[in-house]
């Protein structure tokens, strides 16, 4: 029988079992790397570096995982913090550069496929809306879980998801018909 995430975490805690941790990484690497790729707007190398950093950090701090939330939620939080810290270091934090980046985008440029359009529309969202939409709509987290990951109030998460969705719907209106 396949062990649950909680069972694998217990093995890491009790036996320092790195194989068990490897299994946890294998299970969650895709979603964590995917989230970071979206947050970094498709910078695969940076996203993978951040994912490595997040998983190493999670291993070092696994004793602080109390099992109150899902392991994936806890992991997303660490990954999101890694992303934010890196963004701060690169002085690319939300406000100024988000606006600059959006100004540089040509809204007339339309990618051929829906996926491209969707990714493009997603990348145009401000970071707080993009993060909330990615976590709730793409990764299936509840608003409550997303609020823990992003460390913002529940109401703010709901607002960000709603606004982000509305913007995406408007941008992709032609595809939805």
């Amino acid at each position, binding site marked *: 029988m396949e062990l649950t995430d909680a069972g694998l975490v217990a093995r890491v805690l009790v036996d320092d079992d790195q194989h068990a941790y490897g299994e946890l990484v*294998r299970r969650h690497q895709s979603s964590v790397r*995917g989230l970071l790729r979206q947050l970094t707007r498709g910078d695969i190398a940076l996203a993978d570096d951040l994912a*490595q950093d997040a998983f*190493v950090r999670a291993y070092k701090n696994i004793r602080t995982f109390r099992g109150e939330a899902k392991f994936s939620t806890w992991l997303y939080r660490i990954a999101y913090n890694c992303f934010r810290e890196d963004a701060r270091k690169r002085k690319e934090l939300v406000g100024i550069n988000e606006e600059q980046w959006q100004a540089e985008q040509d809204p007339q440029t339309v990618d051929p496929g829906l996926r491209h359009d969707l990714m493009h529309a*997603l990348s145009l969202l401000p970071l707080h809306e993009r993060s909330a939409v990615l976590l709730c*709509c793409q990764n299936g987290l509840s608003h409550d879980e997303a609020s823990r990951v992003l460390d913002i109030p529940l109401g703010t998460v709901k607002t960000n998801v709603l606004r982000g969705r509305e913007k*995406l719907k408007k941008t992709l209106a032609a595809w939805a018909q």
Partner: protein
Amino acid sequence: MNGETEQDWLDKKLQEAAPYIADDGFTARLLQQLPPPQARLQFLRPFILVAASALASALTYVLSDGGRFIIVEMFKVASIPTVWVVVFALASGMLVMAGGILAAMSKAGQIQS
């Protein structure tokens, strides 16, 4: 297209737009970066517990005038009617059992959620 369906469509497309990312050695590279497991001191645990218990017992014996209070308390317990001792034991057992059941139910709820 109504609001609910539009929302479902958007969520579905977002999920489809995030395909599974193949591991391609990611996990192997990561495992090499992990710090080595800490030296195992697990085998020392029982020895430490026994030594601490022995030390605590010795201190208690010395500080309590050769354990005189134990004899006094034993006399007191011996004078309690047998029925009361049985009732007390039963009540204690049930209390501990109830606590255990509550703790197990709470843990089971956490695991399920």
